[in-house]
């Protein structure tokens, strides 16, 4: 009798028992292993959510002197949800989406103002952005926890697989949101602010006028061309309403070229802070502003050029890195080259700096 003897009943059992266990309990074992990893991340998400909420409340209490305790009202705002319009509507969903999102923004703004007897616009936008972060973290926690608990309740391994696949991306975003809180509290520029930073410098020394809500425009000259410049009104934590502002300026001045400068999410393998040029409306968000810009550009047959500065999610919403800040001058040079290459003397160009203008004036 030796180890190679497959007639040995003991050895035969050693082989067959694990096979039987894995056939009947394999999924449960996998679920057990996967779920412990997911549980760790859920606890981390819960911690992010609670810490950011605590930081928001402490920031308000310590810096903004509210007349009464803002905690119950803030907890209600954090739980707010948005029901998006029905998307099978052939008549056009964009105005409805815009209406719902604007209603939410207007309401949140009014509710924040109601917490204080007096609050500056800078502080109000900072609180509103911090509130958005806490709400996003709360939503991420709730969704991940729901999927995990459903799989656990149903004892269903395949149900946990999509969550396991998506979790690294969710955690990357959650980490970025969590780390963005200190920069926002101190009013520091974030990576997404590179567009407003580039255009803000071009606006220095010009007369700034209101183009739309929290958005400013100004006029300048460059080598015989008339330049219209648009950006969100800094140094508040706002992206403004670039769609409306472009609509107004284009209707009044009919520019020959539109150039949009924005931060863009980099692909894996791409260098951070690298600059790329392209075509089309460079603007993120829910899509309503992009739609508006595309429509007006098409109606007036104006080419739209884009310059983007690549960065990760974390860089986009955290304190601007040196590499990104150092690119501002290069981007400005590229804008002027683009103007020289695509227009001639007497033409009008609209340059738009897209992004959150926190900590970036004009």
């Amino acid at each position, binding site marked *: 009798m030796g180890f190679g003897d497959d007639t040995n009943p003991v050895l035969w059992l050693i082989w067959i028992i694990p096979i039987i266990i894995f056939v009947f309990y394999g999924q449960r074992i996998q679920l057990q292993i996967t779920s412990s990893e997911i549980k760790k991340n859920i606890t981390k998400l819960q*911690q992010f959510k609670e810490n950011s909420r605590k930081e928001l409340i402490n920031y308000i209490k310590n810096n903004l002197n509210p007349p009464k305790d803002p905690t119950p009202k803030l907890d209600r705002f954090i739980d707010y949800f948005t029901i998006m319009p029905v998307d099978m509507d052939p008549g056009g969903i964009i105005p409805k989406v815009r209406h719902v999102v604007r209603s939410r923004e207007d309401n949140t703004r009014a509710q924040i103002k109601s917490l204080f007897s007096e609050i500056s616009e800078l502080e109000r936008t900072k609180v509103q952005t911090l509130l958005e972060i806490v709400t996003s973290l709360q939503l991420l926690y709730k969704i991940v926890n729901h999927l995990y608990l459903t799989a656990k309740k149903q004892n269903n391994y395949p149900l946990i697989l999509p969550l396991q696949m998506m979790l690294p991306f969710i955690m990357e975003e959650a980490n970025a949101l969590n780390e963005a809180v200190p920069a926002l509290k101190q009013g520091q520029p974030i990576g997404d602010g590179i567009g407003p930073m580039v255009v803000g*410098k071009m606006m220095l020394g010009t007369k700034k006028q209101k183009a739309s809500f929290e958005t400013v425009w100004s006029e300048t000259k460059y080598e015989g061309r008339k330049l219209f410049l648009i950006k969100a009104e800094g140094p508040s934590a706002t992206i403004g309403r670039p769609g409306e502002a472009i609509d107004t300026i284009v209707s009044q001045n009919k520019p020959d070229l539109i150039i949009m400068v924005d931060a863009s999410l980099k692909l894996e393998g791409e260098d951070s802070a690298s600059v790329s040029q392209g075509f089309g409306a460079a603007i993120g968000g829910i899509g309503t502003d992009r739609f508006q810009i595309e429509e007006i550009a098409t109606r007036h047959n104006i080419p739209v050029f884009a310059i983007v500065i690549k960065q990760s999610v974390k860089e986009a919403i955290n304190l601007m890195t040196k590499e990104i*800040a150092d690119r501002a001058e290069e981007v400005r040079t590229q804008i002027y080259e683009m103007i020289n290459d695509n227009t001639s003397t007497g033409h009008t160009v609209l340059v738009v700096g897209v992004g959150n203008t926190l900590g970036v004036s*004009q």
Partner: protein
Amino acid sequence: MFSKKEEKRAPYTVEQCESCKKETKRKFIVEQCESCKKETKRKFIEGDYIFKETSPCVSCKGQLRITKIFGEIIKT
């Protein structure tokens, strides 16, 4: 299937690796004189923002303006 032990586990604490502990993020600003274009770098102070006019230039008494605010990882 989900053990009671797992459910009762102590709250998660953020883990830091050895290298992370040794890295700190410092916030700096760069000011440039509008006349002599001389650049100076200093630590960020709350209330600073890009394109804010700060103090007069020590070299030519021109106006200093913040041109950059950024974070740098300092390895200690």
